């Protein structure tokens, strides 16, 4: 057992650090206190930053070399992430493409698709998004209604997607559609690569409860997609989507990354605010801070265990869902303790100094317990696939989709 870098890892880390220093002038950096960069406002700089990093070999670290990656380990990828954070370089604009779309194209795309898309994706020449969720199909993704109908060499798509991160800047998306409503719901789906600039595609920002618009709605109105942009066989869309979804859950908390504000931010906040509280309040606040720290560290170290298994060649499994559950719960405890430490200012949306980190995170967490699998869906997955408990009886898996629709 060992949390230090191995000699190889240390060498790699040093090289990454060198590269980041060397290219510092070409990269976006976060100002002190700044947590992220809005792609709506800084798209060109974000694309440039990713391109520079890609050329330095720091994007797609674990991707196969033949697709522009470095054939590296998950630990190397984690090292790059740590060093980027250390250097205050913001998250990559194409994180959805790298984490979810790219791996799906690698697994299910044609050689032609891989050649055309993957290298450009890594360089952020093209930004990607994922078009799965719909208003009437959230947890029950396979109930989606966006249709694709074959017409000569093309498919014609109509419908609406929702909760699409980055759709407003994306060049391409992976799009899950229903191509055969007479088959059972999971069997009638087909996946495509869609050109987000094609006629008939329109994007509208979707405002969340916190007021900001991190997501979009995307409307498809007779959008034509050539059959050559199909990912996998017709009717195989569900299997293709599972590849994407598993990568999603690993990405969201599955490997022990913090969700919401890092626990270190809470500790720093407590250091500032605790002394101002009266004695009884300090006792209660320490309980809340202690509880949040324990939950966050437990989630973090559990992520390290999972990362260790993956780096030894393990396959990402349903356990990743436990990571997301734990990270979500830890994030709740961290945010609630942080808000309460604000004292009187906790009833406002920001402190008098304009700091809104705690309240903003508080308003963002209810979505986290929903996005990428609700807490309830994740518990079903874990109960059935990890603990081996029996599934609930279901009738919707076998009935033709069109018959099951309301």
């Amino acid at each position: 057992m060992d949390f230090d870098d191995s000699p190889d890892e240390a060498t790699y880390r040093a090289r990454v650090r060198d590269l980041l220093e060397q290219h510092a002038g070409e990269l976006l950096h976060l100002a002190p206190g700044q947590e992220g960069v809005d792609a709506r406002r800084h798209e060109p700089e974000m694309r440039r930053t990713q391109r520079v990093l890609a050329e330095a070999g720091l994007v797609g670290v674990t991707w196969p070399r033949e697709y522009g990656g470095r054939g590296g380990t998950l630990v190397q990828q984690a090292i790059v992430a740590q060093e980027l954070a250390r250097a205050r370089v913001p998250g990559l604009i194409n994180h959805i493409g790298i984490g979810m779309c790219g791996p799906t194209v690698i697994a299910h795309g044609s050689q032609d698709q891989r050649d055309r898309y993957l290298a450009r994706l890594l360089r952020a020449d093209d930004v990607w998004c994922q078009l799965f969720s719909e208003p009437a199909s959230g947890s029950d993704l396979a109930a989606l209604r966006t249709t694709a109908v074959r017409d000569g060499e093309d498919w014609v798509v109509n419908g609406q997607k929702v909760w699409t991160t980055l759709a407003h800047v994306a060049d391409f998306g992976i799009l899950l559609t229903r191509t055969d409503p007479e088959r059972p719901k999971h069997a009638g789906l087909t996946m495509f690569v869609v050109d987000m600039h094609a006629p008939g595609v329109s994007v509208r920002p979707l405002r969340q409860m916190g007021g900001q618009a991190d997501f979009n709605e995307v409307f498809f109105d007779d959008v034509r997609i050539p059959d050559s942009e199909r990912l996998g066989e017709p009717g195989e869309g569900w299997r293709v989507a599972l590849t994407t979804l598993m990568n999603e859950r690993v990405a969201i908390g599955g490997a022990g990354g913090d969700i919401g504000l890092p626990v270190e931010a809470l500790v720093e906040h407590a250091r500032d605010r605790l002394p101002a509280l009266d004695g009884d309040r300090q006792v209660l606040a320490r309980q809340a801070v202690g509880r949040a720290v324990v939950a966050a560290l437990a989630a973090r170290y559990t992520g390290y265990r999972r990362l260790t298994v993956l780096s030894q060649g393990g396959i990402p499994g349903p356990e990743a869902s436990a990571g997301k559950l734990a990270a979500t719960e830890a994030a709740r405890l961290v945010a609630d303790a942080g808000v309460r430490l604000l004292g009187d200012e906790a009833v406002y949306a920001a402190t008098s100094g304009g700091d809104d980190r705690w309240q903003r995170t508080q308003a963002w967490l209810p979505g986290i317990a929903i996005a990428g699998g609700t807490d309830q869906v994740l518990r079903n997955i874990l109960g059935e696939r990890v603990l081996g408990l029996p599934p609930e009886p279901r009738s919707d898996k076998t009935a033709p989709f069109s018959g099951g629709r309301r």
Partner: protein
Amino acid sequence: MNFDLDTDQRDIAAGAREFFTGSASPAAARAGLEGGAPAPGRKALADIGFLGITVPEVAGGSGRPLLDLAVVAEQGGAVLAAPSLVTAARAAVLLADVPELAAQLADGTTAFAVLDGSVDGSAPSIDAADATLFLGLDGGDLVVGEGEIVPGRPLDATRGLASVRLTSRRVIASDAAELWARARQVAAVVMAAEDLGGADRAVALGVAYAQEREAFGRRIGSYQAVKHMLVDAWAGVEQLRSLVWWAAWAADSAPAELPLASSAAKACAASTFERAAGTLIQVHGGIGFTWEHDAHLFWRRAKVDRLLLGDEAEHLDAVARLAVAGAL
């Protein structure tokens, strides 16, 4: 023993429901976050007589028990009405011996707010953001005066929160600590009643959605995870209702029980409303997390109210101290 609303109170509730349904809504609460005015607003509340329910008849009020006001407040809470009846109830206690001010409270000609904490820079106080005359406790004396208002960026715009520094002050009662404490207990009861209304509505909206929305071939309310979440939220609301009624009744009929009862009701309100609003969002899934859906407006109210007039920890502490001291 008869622990239920009587026919009069049921009529009052029905009337209040009709009034508030027509004059306030979560949509108005949403608009408030972008600068919209409070709904139904102080004037409308005064015109229908709600600001004066507990103001003595000599001062132009209705001189009714707090329970009547609580029943009305519940209906206002259900649609996130603003301004709050908390101020009306609290100021009515403080101004019981100052009929000329009480009259201005009841008829809405003066916009009162009651300041929590120091009058030289108060804690965030309810409906202070657009008030013109403030009541505060200044070294044991009850004072009234004008003030400089510093509002914060609203999390829940319907609460009209602001900090205030009095720029003028006039003593209207000396040695008023006990009166002040009682007024704050009454305020806690009314806020608990508003929270009861909000929590009750949140659960009802969640139940309605769970009865309709389908996933995996079944209505989602048939899944135990959803069903039990809603049941627990509903059961919490029923428990809260009992404590609110008891506390309001105590204010009218058993003043010795009010300190413990009001703290019990307020502590219960904080966690019950928060859970109900969180459940409302979770049951709705993605749509419940959008700006356009009403769920977050209940959630905002719950997140703010849980901290106002003493948070859960303060009131649990008070309940324990009072009980150990013999109040139970």
